[in-house]
């Protein structure tokens, strides 16, 4: 597998988003605006939604509530869900203008759409985000943003190559861990030695029996790049469980709790201890009292432990007796949470708080941890090469073949 992604990214870092970047929001005619619209047409961001169930419905609702947004298209492989979302959009604007699609490529091909939200199961994220960038769309992508390690750098490359604003989707990273973040960034804990995170479990193989495919569902499209398998309602249910009754339980579609909650907790932890721009270099599998846990070491010496016995979630160890100068805490570009931050960056062409590169680094922690647990051994990670050092077997877990005809 090629290992040049990060070097490419170094170039793209210097050439990507600028204030003069492309793709300012489309100006839409006032005749298509719904009643009660306050912003002038030139300030409205024309959006489409891909994946409307569960979190996708939540994303749609949050964006729709922003008067600076005009949804014109929705896409889902389940017609009933898709039509329901169309109804929501049309109801909001009191018209019938929202178009429902079953194939995201048709939605992305529309030149009038500025930005999309992607809230499908995780195995689709990379393909859709990259294709959206290739079509000049800005993207808000639900977490966990990647399903494999290889996907992350390719998503970042696509965003930088085309000057797109791409935001990851964990609102908790900024909003849920403020006490820990404030303590760390204020300097009162001194130099940070370590932080512990509790998430789990890993996703599992799925071999559920066949059931009849619902009449409104395009099952082949739901599977997409994942291995073919017969329809089963538990295989594809979008609920938040990881115990076997949802796609979040199964490794073809999700990393389980390790990535689903990892996107939040690892995101918060790496933000708190200020390593969110880095990836770990060592992943050590250790054992204490019969319980396995991981210690991930960052290039600056900070340790991130996973499920370390005796430690709580986001429990930080600083340096007692030492203080450090406070640092200004990064945050959203505007008030209104992660959705408003994304929309503001679409207008300003700035980097959102959960810029895709930072989100990728967060999910990388989950993926690297999963590979170490799966192989049952410690690993060394070369972030520049995006390869494990001296472990060709581990490198085979960095990606997996996509079912034809899907390709990154």
């Amino acid at each position, binding site marked *: 597998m090629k290992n040049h992604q990060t070097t490419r990214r170094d170039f793209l870092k210097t050439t990507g988003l600028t204030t003069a970047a492309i793709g300012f929001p489309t100006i839409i005619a006032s005749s298509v605006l719904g009643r009660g619209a306050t912003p002038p047409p030139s300030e409205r961001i024309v959006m489409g939604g891909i994946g409307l169930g569960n979190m996708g419905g939540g994303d749609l609702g949050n964006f729709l509530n922003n008067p600076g947004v005009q949804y014109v298209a929705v896409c889902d492989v389940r017609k009933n869900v898709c039509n329901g979302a169309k109804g929501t959009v049309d109801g909001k604007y009191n018209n019938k203008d929202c178009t429902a699609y079953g194939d995201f490529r048709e939605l992305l091909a529309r030149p009038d759409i500025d930005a999309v939200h992607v809230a499908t199961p995780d195995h689709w994220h990379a393909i859709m985000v990259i294709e959206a960038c290739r079509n*000049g769309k800005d993207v808000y992508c639900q977490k966990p943003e990647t399903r494999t390690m290889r996907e992350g750098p390719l998503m970042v490359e696509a965003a930088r190559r085309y000057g797109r604003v791409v935001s990851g989707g964990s609102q908790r990273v900024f909003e849920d861990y403020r006490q820990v973040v404030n303590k760390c960034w204020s300097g009162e804990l001194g130099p940070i030695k370590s932080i512990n995170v509790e998430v789990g479990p890993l996703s599992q193989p799925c071999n559920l029996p066949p059931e009849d495919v619902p009449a409104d569902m395009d099952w082949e499209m739901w599977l997409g790049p994942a291995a073919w398998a017969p329809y089963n309602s538990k295989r594809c249910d979008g609920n938040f469980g990881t115990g076997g009754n949802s796609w979040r339980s199964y490794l073809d579609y999700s990393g389980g709790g390790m990535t689903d909650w990892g996107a939040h907790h690892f995101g918060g932890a790496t933000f708190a201890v200020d390593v969110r721009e880095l990836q770990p270099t060592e992943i050590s599998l250790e054992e204490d009292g019969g319980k396995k846990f991981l210690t991930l070491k960052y290039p600056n010496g900070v340790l991130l432990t996973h499920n370390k016995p005796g430690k709580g979630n986001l429990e930080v160890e600083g340096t007692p007796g030492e203080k450090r100068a406070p640092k200004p805490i990064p945050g959203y570009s505007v008030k209104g949470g992660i959705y408003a931050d994304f929309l503001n960056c679409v207008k300003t062409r700035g980097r959102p708080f959960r810029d895709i590169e930072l989100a990728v680094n967060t999910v990388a922690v989950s993926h690297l941890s999963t590979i170490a647990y799966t192989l049952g051994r410690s690993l060394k990670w070369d972030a520049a090469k995006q390869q494990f050092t001296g472990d060709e077997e581990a490198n085979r877990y960095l990606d997996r073949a996509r079912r034809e005809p899907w390709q990154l």
Partner: protein
Amino acid sequence: MNEAAFDALKTYDWGVEPNVLQPLTDAVVTTHGNAAARLELEIQLAAVLKTDVPRAAKDAVCRLLKPIGTAASVPTLAALLADEKLSHMARYALELMPAPEAGEALRAALPKVGGKLKIGVISSLGVRGDAAGVAPLQALLADGDPAIARAAAYALGAIGSPEANAALAAAKASPATRAAMADASLACAEELLATDRKPAAKATYQRLLGGKPSKLVEQAAARGVKACEGR
């Protein structure tokens, strides 16, 4: 214990509890560092693919071969590349297999498969960064099926070498392949720039700018030129 799991594979169809195969998953882990035991396990697994076990069993075997497969299992996996139902899972095991034989098998399969299966094989060659795949992929840039030509372009972009870049430069894009070829050329240019071959990178960006690009590609290429000039 492995014997029971291999027996379970004979009737491993959709709906069977996957834990019956756990001993094989465990064996993948425990044989790490024991080449002889690994090879024995690999040969046993590959042999299953030649039998008439259910599709779910062959699917599971390909997953088990993914981390441990060597040249020893390539011929068996290669034989599945033209199988409509199993081609993907054969690539699942072959795609990141370091053995050069895996790349050779994928290249050999190219003229034997069509449609979606060919796109899958093309994609795997790209992911492998298969240098020897540049020539056959270049030929596919002119394929009558635009989906195959686009796949070949993206694969060349993934390979990203000067040879891949030259192949893209020499190809004639159609309206259906123009965006994919431009994207792949941008990827190659980025790789050239990242590996300190600025003149070649700049030439690629300028070639794109001279070809009536879309606004999106034009701006990407213009940024690339600036980067090449250190601006």
